[in-house]
């Protein structure tokens, strides 16, 4: 077994991946919510 295999390795930083994943789903959802709010305001203005 090589030295690399036996030494404890810290797991990679997942924060960039977490941010990317949430932006991936968050942007379309925000678009949907924006369109919804635009339409919902018609209840008070229409």
């Amino acid at each position, binding site marked *: 077994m090589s030295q690399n295999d036996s030494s404890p390795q810290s797991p990679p930083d997942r924060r960039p991946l*977490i941010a990317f994943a949430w932006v991936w789903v968050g942007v379309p959802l925000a678009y949907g919510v924006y369109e919804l709010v635009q339409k919902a*305001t018609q209840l008070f203005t229409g």
Partner: protein
Amino acid sequence: MSPPVAPAGWSRWLVPPAALSVHLSIGQAYAWSVFKPPLESALGLSGTQSALPFQLGIVMLGLSAAFGGTLVERNGPRWAMTVALICFSSGFLLSALGAVTEQYWLIVLGYGFVGGIGLGIGYISPVSTLIKWFPDRPGMATGIAIMGFGGGALIASPWSAQMLESFGSDSSGIALAFLVHGLSYAVFMTLGVLLVRVPRTEKPVEGAPSITSGPQVSARSAVRTPQFWCLWVVLCMNVTAGIGILEKAAPMITDFFKDSSTTVSASAAAGFVALLSAANMAGRIGWSSTSDLIGRKNIYRLYLGAGALMYLLIALVGDSSKPLFVLCALVILSFYGGGFATIPAYLKDLFGTYQVGAIHGRLLTAWSTAGVLGPLIVNWIADRQEEAGKSGSSLYTLSLFIMIGLLAIGFVANEFVRPVHSRHHIPAPREAADVAERQQSAESA
């Protein structure tokens, strides 16, 4: 295919976006109505015919969730998400072919049958995995995913409408729109396939309960317990009552204030419908997360008990105040969404995590039943009342009282829910080993 096990250091916060990428896509189903008028004019269809792909899709959702649940548990979430991606996207591609060749049966087959399988498998694909990653907050975790299903329609509705405006509403424009939908959703859902992982240990979170703590019941045994059928009634009644408002929201608010000084215009009624969608979505995440704090039985007492009270207020004094009417309807819709989102966590409490996805799939037949029952009751009664010469809010009084009755039935069913009897539990690994050992020594003696 073996389930994808998370490597060391994998964050559980990667699993909700994986689930959302699937649910935000398949939630498009509720925006099908955008395609109806162009299809009717391009292919010469009636309203009933143009609704067929959606209706078949919802039927297939219920069937594939009910019968595919065990496969999803066995093969894991990545397999399930892959199947959902392939079916949902190829459903659109087949529909594109159907539109360009003007073969409507291909659209029904593609979107309704093939796409519908994607809806069902996709809907249950992340549930079990989310509950395993969030044993401390199962309501919140499944609430995020199931909120995505509501959010999917919010995204697809304006997006599809804009696409049809750009490509044109003739058969080739519709075909191009279907093609873009199929390809875009395939790319979007890929994130879920790539990111989803099952926890590597039974205790993915320090200080939280173990995944396998508490009683564990198989899907086959669960459907033989009274608890399963009590929850089936609870879900069916809650969804039927919600659909009671959703189905007739726009004409209802218009009729309620027809004779008042504050009449409701068509655009204001559309705004009311949009506001209900927001309440539905907010209820999914908000109430489901609250259930982690106050308990599942209590939250359903709220959905069903306070829901009945809201219906009663609408029936008795709804036409006297527009803000009161809107507020009551918003609360009812938030309970409707909450009921959907909290049910997986309720199932986990009763039956454990062992096959919770498969049990959830079987329970979704209550949704299919409610999807037929709700509109049937509301539309049939409204038509009869109109024939009887009634108008305004009195058109809906009988429907509203029927909804109160249904919610009361659901409330009673929830009160009957008790912990599952130990004869339905699967033996723990240690107990199973002991039983096997005893059997072996009995045989050799």
